[in-house]
């Protein structure tokens, strides 16, 4: 204890600074500060900034690529949709076209058949009329001959002959009508 006190008394007060040490420390500090400002801090900040930029740039690029892909997909979907609509329209048109053509043909066929039927009817009518006329003539002649043969008198007188034939025919018609009614 004594020795410690003695030692403390013999030494300088530890709080009294050495001016030269202060100066050297100050100079050393300023030099280091200068180097830090001039070289170290800018270098590290640049690396940090570059790294941040690289990461942000990468993210931005990825976002852009994603947006582009989305736009392409939207466009593709839109095109697909419009193509589908187009196809439907074409199909619809084709169907209506087909129906129209079919109806057209049907009409034309109907008209043709109607025409043919009518022609046939006309031809049959004409044939029948002709047949009636020729039958009447023939039947008249045959009947006259038959009658003249039966009666034995000449029935050459036309007026009389016609009258006889008409009467005969009327009888014949009446008989036919009766049998027709009976049938």
């Amino acid at each position, binding site marked *: 204890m004594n*020795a410690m006190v003695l030692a403390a008394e013999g030494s300088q007060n530890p709080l009294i600074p050495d001016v*030269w*040490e202060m100066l050297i420390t100050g100079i050393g*500090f300023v030099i280091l500060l200068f180097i830090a*400002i001039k070289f*170290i801090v800018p270098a*590290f*900040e640049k690396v940090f900034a*570059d790294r941040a930029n690289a990461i942000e740039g990468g993210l931005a690029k990825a976002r852009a690529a994603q947006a582009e892909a989305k736009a392409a997909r939207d466009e593709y979907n839109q095109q697909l949709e419009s193509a589908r609509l187009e196809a439907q329209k074409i199909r619809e048109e084709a169907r209506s076209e087909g129906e129209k053509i079919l109806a057209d043909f049907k009409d034309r066929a109907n008209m043709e058949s109607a025409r043919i039927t009518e022609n046939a009817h006309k031809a049959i009518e004409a044939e029948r009329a002709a047949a009636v006329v020729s039958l009447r003539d023939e039947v008249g002649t045959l009947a006259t001959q038959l009658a003249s043969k039966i009666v034995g008198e000449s029935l050459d007188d036309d007026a009389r002959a016609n009258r006889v034939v008409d009467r005969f025919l009327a009888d014949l018609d009446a008989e036919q009508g009766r049998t027709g009614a009976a049938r």
Partner: protein
Amino acid sequence: MNPALRIPAEFVAPSTEDMHLPPLFEVGSFAFGKQTLLILLSVVLIAGFFMFVIRRRAMVPSKGQFLGEMGYGFVRNHLGRDIIGEKDFRPFVPLLFTFFFFLLVNNLFGSIPVLQLPTFSHPGSAYILAAIAYVVWVAVGIRRHGLGQFMVKMTMPPNVPKILYVILIPLEFLSNLIIRPVTHALRVFATMFAGHMAIMVAAALTAFLATEVGGVLGVGGSVFGIVLGLFIYFLEVLIQVLQAYIFTLLFAVYVQGALQEGH
């Protein structure tokens, strides 16, 4: 030669004299000793290390660059951005960086064999650094707020009954503008001084017990001295790192306080 390690008949505790080794050379009153040499060595070491690891400015860092970035990023982000604030911290990054690593390396010199001297156990170095910090934060505050407003900020805490200002103004002035820089300097100086002294005492004790007392008791006691010395050594490493951090942290807090809007 450490006088405590000479073999005296009676135990002589090491003193401050033992921290001041004879200078390497002298020019007039200028004595260039171990302490000043270590200061310059620290500048070379710090500048050399950081400039070497960042020389490639690689996007993907090497191990060395990663270590440098970790150290730099720690000061920049935790002491700068987190305390001074996103808006204002950038101009202070070089100062914070220099304070922290200058103190860290110089303190750790105390735990490196052969160098074995924490530079800030000499008071002059601690004073000048605290003075630089003081001038900077006061200047920053005056530039931001003007002298009058800055003094108001420093001496008149808000939301206090007016009558209390009679006591508060002198007290706040004393505590913020006079005691603050003194404690800023003494905190680092005293811890470094005391730590260095404690290690010297443990070493002297070990040497004294082993060589002077001798015998079973002496040798056994010297083993205790070694264990004590080792314990103090690791405690010192922790304190050396912590003090560098605290000094820089306090500087950042002072700057933040000086820049703060309103009061």
